[in-house]
């Protein structure tokens, strides 16, 4: 007969047995005080995010340009990077959004014409509950979370951006994919009246992106409504976009109008334009070079100065622990 005692070596003390509640709370208070600058600016950012992780207060400095979008801390593994945040100005003035021009400064200059209200996202294809979702209803579907992700562009630069949104999986669960659904296709806005470069021969419009269903269901895949504690600025993909932090930036479609569930791998915009350069998966991978540039290193915008060495790019953009198992056994040189 097995008699369980506290002394058999298998029952471990809980964390509250080791550290008194008062000590924990005092520790949090210290972190918050550090965040206000007492401990100096070097530690402030780190402490601020620790405080954020502890009680969900919004730690990101709001730029005060757009409507606030409040969120709670995320407890998804890997959801809060400790890297230094990219300045809001850099993140919103250096963009690839070809519907508004091919130059990095074009989207910030031209995207004011984008009409983001009213906005609906249509769910179609192999789901039990297809239909149109008004943006207002999407915003209420699940609590907003603060997520601080690294963003690695296929061109060799990177940023660290505090997004606001919730896991796409929340929406996918609501619409109930059928058993035959294997892929998710994201169709983005293509309105020649408000987007001056739709119709240019650079790409096939609308811009379409896609994920495997299990990638789309991964908790790090973020249906994104805001950044830096505010709603998305137009050049960043307002009012709703995707952010897939372990893939090159172009996989994260902006200004999404349709989400389609399919049994076939969707044809994605850049893959259609140059299949030998942009694969369907496009996972960040320092070992698979783009034919036009190396992917081994990257320049962190606003941080790595002109003469600084570029930093090493991490496998799956540093999210290998969270997403590596999605690609177990796959030849990533073949499925780039």
């Amino acid at each position: 007969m097995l008699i369980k005692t506290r002394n058999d070596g298998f029952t471990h003390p809980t964390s509250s047995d080791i550290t008194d509640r008062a000590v924990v709370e005092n520790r949090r208070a210290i972190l918050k005080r550090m965040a206000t600058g007492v401990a100096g600016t070097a530690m402030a950012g780190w402490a601020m995010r620790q405080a954020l992780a502890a009680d969900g207060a919004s730690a990101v400095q709001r730029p005060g340009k757009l409507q606030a979008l409040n969120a709670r801390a995320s407890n998804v593994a890997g959801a809060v990077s400790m890297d230094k945040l990219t300045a809001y100005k850099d993140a919103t003035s250096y963009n690839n959004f070809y519907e508004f021009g091919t130059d990095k400064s074009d989207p910030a200059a031209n995207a004011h014409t984008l009409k983001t209200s009213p906005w609906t996202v249509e769910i179609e294809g192999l789901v039990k509950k297809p239909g149109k979702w008004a943006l207002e209803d999407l915003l209420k579907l699940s609590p907003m979370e603060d997520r601080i992700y690294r963003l690695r562009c296929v061109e060799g630069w990177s940023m660290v951006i505090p997004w606001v949104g919730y896991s796409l999986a929340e929406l996918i669960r609501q619409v109930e994919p059928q058993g035959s659904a294997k892929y998710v296709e994201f169709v983005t806005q293509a309105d020649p009246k408000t987007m001056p470069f739709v119709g240019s021969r650079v790409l096939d419009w609308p811009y379409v992106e896609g994920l495997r269903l299990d990638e789309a269901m991964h908790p790090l895949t973020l249906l994104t409504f805001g950044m830096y504690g505010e709603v998305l600025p137009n050049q960043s993909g307002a009012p709703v976009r995707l952010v897939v932090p372990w893939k090159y930036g172009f996989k994260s479609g902006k200004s999404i109008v349709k989400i389609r569930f399919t049994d076939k791998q969707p044809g994605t915009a850049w893959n259609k334009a140059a299949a030998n350069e942009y694969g369907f998966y496009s996972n960040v991978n320092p070992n698979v070079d783009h034919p036009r540039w190396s992917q081994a290193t990257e320049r962190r915008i606003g941080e790595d100065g002109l003469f600084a060495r570029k930093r090493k790019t991490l496998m799956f953009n540093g999210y290998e622990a969270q997403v590596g198992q999605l690609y177990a056994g796959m030849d990533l040189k073949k499925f780039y």
Partner: protein
Amino acid sequence: MGMQVAFNRWLSGRLAKPLVFVAALLPVVWLVLAAAMDWLGANPAEALERSTGDWALRMLCVVLAVTPLRTVAQLPTLARFRRMLGLFVYFYAMLHLLAYSWFDMGFELADIARDIPKRPFILVGFTAVLLLTPLALTSFNRAIRALGGKRWQALHRLVYVIAGLAIVHFFWMRAGKHNFAEVAVYAAILGLLLGWRLLRFFQKIGLQPSSILRRQLSK
């Protein structure tokens, strides 16, 4: 006609050369200032790499425009600026190579040596700079005398090859993003400047279609 004479006289004056020299230096002065003042946007390294390349290409267009302008606009005195403008092509091309080696490759010679053959558009650009080097090295009077005019001229016709390589380099770099509008502008300018020379060459050797036709008919 009077204005042309006046302009030619001004071009041969003492002030013209220093002024053109300063004007050709303005882009690099601006780039250094902008880099120091943080006016180059979110990615200053990329901005410097691209603008030095742009200016090398622009200078190439300017120097190749000298001879057509001399002839068409009857401004023979333009010839005295040709060497200086040619050297500015080399100057901006070297800055472009320097920006790539420094900002992109961190002066890692082994990495650069591996990168050049690996990426076709880098190989083409590097070849263009390589071919420009003998032209820059033989630009002074003693080199011209040593080589003899004919051989010197033959060597300096390499610039036509270089112009082609520069456009291919630019095209290939932009091909990754299907973005050819700017490439087309430079290709059109260089095409016009080289096309004018080709036309003149054919006229010189009497290969006009009409003359061939006439010869055929007289038989």
